[in-house]
């Protein structure tokens, strides 16, 4: 069961984990990304491509479910303005086996970072704004799964 949500509202990781664990697989892996403060950052503005976002996330989830035996996949990605410390993304996977759950969760995050149409703009304490640039480490991580 694949569940995808793109929303402005916050989410409760515990609620999502409990929903997947109710499927009885026994192994639930999850990842939460949040806005990390470095002293200079005030907030992030998350833009996306509404017509494409859910399609792209679903494609990633389907690929994961073809590679690992999963009972369920949940992806929630927030958009709009997010303050330092707020949650951005949740990926949660449920399987009979912990390696499958953990690897699928890691795979989905790596793909999401490189093929889901989201763009982050940093709003700094001094008011300046910068579009975040892609990172080589994210490209390398996504590449790993192709080998």
């Amino acid at each position: 069961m694949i569940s995808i949500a793109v929303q402005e509202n916050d989410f409760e990781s515990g609620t999502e984990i409990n929903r997947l664990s109710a499927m009885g697989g026994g192994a639930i892996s999850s990842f939460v990304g949040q806005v990390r403060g470095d002293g200079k950052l005030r907030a992030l503005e998350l833009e996306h491509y509404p017509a494409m976002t859910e399609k792209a996330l679903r494609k990633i989830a389907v690929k994961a479910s073809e590679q690992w035996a999963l009972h369920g996949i949940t992806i929630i990605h927030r958009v709009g303005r997010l303050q330092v410390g707020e949650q951005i993304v949740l990926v949660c996977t449920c399987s009979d086996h912990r390696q499958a759950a953990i690897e699928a969760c890691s795979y989905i995050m790596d793909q999401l970072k490189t093929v889901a149409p989201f763009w982050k703009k940093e709003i700094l304490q001094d008011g300046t704004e910068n579009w975040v640039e892609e990172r080589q480490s994210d490209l390398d991580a996504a590449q790993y799964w192709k080998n």
Partner: protein
Amino acid sequence: MSHQLNVVYFSWVKERIGRDQDIIDCPENAETVAQILEFLQSKDAVYQEVFADLKKLRFALDQDFVGLETLLGSAKELAIFPPVTGG
């Protein structure tokens, strides 16, 4: 018959162009993504500058990632944006 294409922009591409989409009539000889970019650049100095470094851009045709040489076919929407940075 002229083929209408909705060209949508995101992130700094949208900011620099100053709007989030253009609805264009594809010229007869524009068959690929690259040719649409050339067409837009020929019309306007802003496009020319924003699309100057193609390595900084990514493209989606009807909401699927494509390369510059992909044929437009009967696609209705071309999206132009920088590399994604979500998650």
